[in-house]
Structures are given as C-alpha cells and as structure tokens.
C-alpha cells in the first residue's frame, strides 16, 4: 500500500498555503470555492475582497508544489437563474480562464453543469461533489455518463465497504471519501441546509420560528445524544482500511482555523488519534458537545462495532453506555439539574484523561470550570494554579480566575486579573468582554461601555455583549443608545427573548408604551417557543 495523501480545503487564511509546502508529500489536492460572484456555496464563509485575485496565487502555488488545484462548484440550489444560459456562460468563461491559468480539476454538484463543463472543457478533471449524494451504483453510473472522472461518495455510506467497492468496480472511476465531516447520518435537515446556504450567501435572514441552522443538530442530540456515534466519519486509525476501495481522501477543513487544519492533518497522516474527537470533526452542530474521548471509543472497539451495526437501536445499549463513559455534553444545552450531573461526569472523564496526558493544560482548565459550575471554588482554583504552572500564558486560566473573583463579588481582584490578561493578549475580545462585565457589576458604566465596544471591535459579539451594552446605557439613562445597541444585537440573535425584554424596559422609560407592549409580545413568543423545544427535548 502506498502512502495515503489527502485533499485539503481552503479556509480563506492565506497562511494555510505555507502548510501546503510543509506537507506537500502528504497532500494530493487543494480545493477552494468558485467566487460568490459566480455561484453560491455549501458554506457561509466570508471570502474577503481579495479572494478573486487570490485564486491565481493559489493555483500557481499548487502547481509549483505538484498539488492538484480544485475549484468547488458545490451549491445545491441556484434558484431561478442557475439553469439560465447567460448565468452558466459566465461560470464557463471563468472556468476556461482558470484552466488556462493552471486549474486542473472542478468539483461539481449540479449534474447539468457536469455535463456542460465536460462538453466545453475537455481536458479538465471533473469530480462529483459530495453534495451529489451518491449512495448507489446506479447513481454513480449516471454521473459517469454525464462526464465525471471521480465520484465522491455520500458520507452516509462511508462504512459500507462492499457498496463502495462495487461503485468503484462498476464505474471504473476513482473514488473519493470524506474523512472527518461531523454531520449526522441521514440528517433530516441536510437538503434544506445546503439549499438554504446556496441561496443565502452571507445574507442570513430572520428565520422561521426558533430555527437557527447551527441549532438544528442540537435538537436531534437533545433527544438522542447517542446519535453522535452514527456520524459516518472515518477515524484516523481506520483510514488504511479504505485503501482497497478508495483513491482520494478528503478532509473537510474550510471552516477550520489553520492551526486546527494542521492538527487534523497530522492525526490522519499518523493514522492514529487518542484525544478529543471534536478537535478533528467538522460540523457546527457538534457545539452540543464539550468532549468526546476517542481513546475510550477505541478501547470499546468503536469502529468495528459501529460498522457492523444494523441501526436497530434499543437492543444492545452500546451507544448509551459509551455516552456515559466518553462524552461530555455542553451544559449550555441542558437544564439546571442535568447540568450538575454533566459537570460531575465531566470531572470524572477529564481526570481520567489527565492520567494519560498530565501536561494537557486545557484539561486542567476544563476541570476547574466544572468545579466552578458545581460551586466548589477551592478545588477549581487548585486546577487553575496547576494549569498556570504548566503555562503561565494560558489565557483560559485568567478568564476562569477572573470569573471566580467576579462571582465572589471581588470586582477589584477580577479587574486586576483581566487587565493582566490584556497585557498578555492585547487583542482578545473575550478579555475585553469580561473586563466590561466586571465594570458593569461595579457600576462603572462608562468604563464598561468602552471595554464592551472594544470587545465588539475585536469580533467578540456574543449575545451577552449586546445585553450588557444595552444595560449600561439603560442604567445611565441613555435609553435611545440602549435601544440602538439592542437592535444591533437582534440582527445577530433574532430569536433571543432577553433582547426584547430589555427593550420593553427602555421603551417604557421613554414613554413608548405601545412599542414596549410589542416587544413584550415578541419576547414571550420567543420564550415560549424556546421553552417548548427545551421541554420536549430535555
């Protein structure tokens, strides 16, 4: 068996190109999206103003390194315009221009585009996108007739070796598998999700009910956390099993930081991994979880067991047992009783992880957070100090320590901790937020506003930043400014009742009772909807 090489996706951080050079022996292709001016995408990732020009540099660099440059055309819905002659002609002209600049391959979702590109640009390699959802030999053969050279199989059949093998044999084409995508198998929201993203490039609208795209998976996980094990990813230590059925191995990295891409790539190069599975899987819905201990999964023969599973759940209880031993759920998604149990479980799991990795600073911090949540401050502080002994610049330690002093009503000490942290990390929006929060509780509203605005400027725009800014202005009697900040927050957080309730207070103060009542209605509608979902699912 030859060495396995991987396909990496561009995350719009130009520094990633340096990694291509460093890992040229391990990377066979590099994919990047066609600019939004031509077509939507399966991801909502800002491309930046210079992206159009960047593409030429990317192609040049890839060719120099002998890495196949691939352009993604993976939108699953192009609306009324997608099949228009002029619309497609623009795309085709652009692809022809890029091909003459060295583009070697395109990854395409729309079958009509596949056929047209095949006719018009004979020498370019065409891959069917994973968004073609190929799950059968028949489907793959149709795509072959349309002109594809490589079939990316639907990740849902990732563990059906005989089927993948059959697709390869019957089509005679090369097969690409997705390794680390973290989406649910048979996800009921999948088509809708991709269609929505394809048409709503960077223009998210106020959505129906309490639906936000990132929370859709959480709704499933709240009812069935064990479904996290149905994600059809291919673990690093099992990649070699695919050598006889697959030709290309794609890492889903477009939404990863460059640091995370290198970490993930290394795990797959080494074909070994023992840490937190969330470090290598890609799906925003996985925010539902805080930790998945892959070492425990391996110990319980996870891959072999899951690959043979007939999905007739309720019989063996394997997944439920594994949830208890290896998975920590993000307590933000749980009610208060469940949070306590999850924090107690977290301490057990993290303590076990520490035995294997005693220098892992992040685990000390996670344990301290769990102890803080359980109001066991002394124990929490012990773990913070251990983390700082290992790394005096562990930013998380300062944040947790500051929060502890805030909770102990020791604002002066909290401010001192955050200011010290800012000296170490002067551009951290998170620290500015915590500083602003402390000033607020200290009734220093002017200073709080300055810090919170700085947090926003540093791209830290959590719901709490807007609520605190609104509260600072409200407490200082600047109601119109408060309303403006809350309205800004409402654009990012359209389903949060808290914003409306604070608006109620401001409108009442300035005598706009009618508007206050409207906000009250909106707030209770959102509250009720959220409670209905949580009630059903907790």
């Amino acid at each position, binding site marked *: 068996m030859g060495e396995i090489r991987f396909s990496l996706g561009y995350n719009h951080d130009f520094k990633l190109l340096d990694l291509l050079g460093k890992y040229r022996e391990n990377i066979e292709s590099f994919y990047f999206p066609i600019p939004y001016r031509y077509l939507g995408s399966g991801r909502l990732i800002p491309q930046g103003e210079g992206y159009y020009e960047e593409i030429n540099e990317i192609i040049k660099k890839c060719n120099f390194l002998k890495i196949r440059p691939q352009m993604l055309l993976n939108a699953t819905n192009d609306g009324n315009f997608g099949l228009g002659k002029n619309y497609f002609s623009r795309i085709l002209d652009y692809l022809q221009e890029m091909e003459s600049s060295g583009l070697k391959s395109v990854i395409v979702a729309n079958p009509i585009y596949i056929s047209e590109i095949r006719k018009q640009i004979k020498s370019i390699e065409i891959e069917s996108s994973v968004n073609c959802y190929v799950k059968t030999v028949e489907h793959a053969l149709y795509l072959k007739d349309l002109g594809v050279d490589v079939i990316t199989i639907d990740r849902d059949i990732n563990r059906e070796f005989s089927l993948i093998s059959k697709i390869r044999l019957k089509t005679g084409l090369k097969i690409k598998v997705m390794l680390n995508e973290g989406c649910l198998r048979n996800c009921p929201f999948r088509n809708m999700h991709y269609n929505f993203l394809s048409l709503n490039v960077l223009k998210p609208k106020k959505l129906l009910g309490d639906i936000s795209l990132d929370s859709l998976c959480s709704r499933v996980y709240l009812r069935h956390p064990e479904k996290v094990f149905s994600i059809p990813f291919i673990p690093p230590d099992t990649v070699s099993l695919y050598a006889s059925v697959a030709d290309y191995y794609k890492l889903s990295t477009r939404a990863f930081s460059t640091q995370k891409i290198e970490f993930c790539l290394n795990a797959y190069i080494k074909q070994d991994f023992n840490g937190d599975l969330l470090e290598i899987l890609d799906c925003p819905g996985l925010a539902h979880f805080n930790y998945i201990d892959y070492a425990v999964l391996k110990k319980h023969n996870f891959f072999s067991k899951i690959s043979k599973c007939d999905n007739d759940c309720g019989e063996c209880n394997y997944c439920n047992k594994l949830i208890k031993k290896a998975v920590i759920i993000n307590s933000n998604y749980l*009610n*208060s009783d469940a949070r306590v149990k999850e924090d107690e479980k977290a301490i057990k799991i993290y303590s076990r992880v520490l035995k294997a990795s005693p220098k892992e600073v992040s685990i000390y911090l996670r344990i301290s957070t769990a102890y803080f949540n359980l109001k066991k401050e002394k124990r929490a502080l012990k773990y913070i100090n251990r983390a700082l002994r290992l790394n005096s610049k562990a930013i998380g330690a300062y944040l947790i320590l500051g929060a502890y002093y805030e909770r102990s009503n020791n604002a002066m000490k909290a401010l001192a901790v955050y200011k010290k942290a800012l000296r170490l990390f002067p551009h951290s929006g998170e620290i500015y937020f915590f500083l602003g*929060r402390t000033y*607020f*509780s200290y009734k220093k509203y002017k200073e709080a506003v300055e810090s919170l605005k700085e947090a926003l400027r540093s791209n830290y725009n959590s*719901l*709490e*930043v*807007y*609520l*605190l800014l*609104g*509260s600072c202005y409200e407490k200082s009697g600047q109601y119109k400014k408060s309303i403006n900040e809350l309205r800004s927050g409402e654009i990012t957080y359209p389903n949060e*009742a*808290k914003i409306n*309730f*604070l608006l*109620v*207070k401001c409108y*009442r103060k300035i005598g706009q009772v009618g508007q206050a009542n409207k906000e*009250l209605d909106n*707030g*209770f509608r959102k*509250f*009720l909807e*959220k409670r209905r979902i*949580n009630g059903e699912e907790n």
Partner: protein
Amino acid sequence: MAKKIKLETVYVPSEDVVSRELEGEFIIIPIASGIGESDDDFFSLNKTGRLIWSKMNGRNNLKEIAHELIKEFDVPVEIIEKDIVGLVGELLKKKMLREIGAK
C-alpha cells in the same frame, strides 16, 4: 441574613421583571443584564400565587392582601398570611419585588 418580612410592608413588582400568563401558567421572567441569568431562570406561580402577585400593586400591604384573599379561599387568615410571607420571601430572593414602604 434575609430581612424579616413584615405584614405591614407594601411591595410592587420590580421593574426588572416581565410577567404574563402563558398556556395556563403564570410566568415571571427577570430582564437580563447579561450577567449570570440563564434561560431557565424564570418563576412560575400557581393560582394563589398569581392572585397574590396581582394584588401587590403598591396600594395594599401584605396584611390587607391576606384579608382580601379570605374572601376567595375558605382557610384561616394565619395560613394565608404564612403562604404570602413564603411567596414574598421567594420573590425577594429572586429580586422580583421591590419594597416601597409600610402602612
């Protein structure tokens, strides 16, 4: 230590809460400043609690509220007063009431 609740005291709902009957349940929600409040940090009142809440309008002290409630419930005034003090204690703990004086 919590302040002793006197029956002569007059309370009103805090301006930092909103309340409404939702699907047969009476809910009081704190208006969040962004610090510490979680989504499940609301308070639900039963029928008696709702009645007490509705009478805390700044005009009646707790003793007067108890006497008004005798008309609705056939129980000794001492029991009603005890219930009221218990509820007011809970609501004060959650900063959902504001004391405005005594009479």
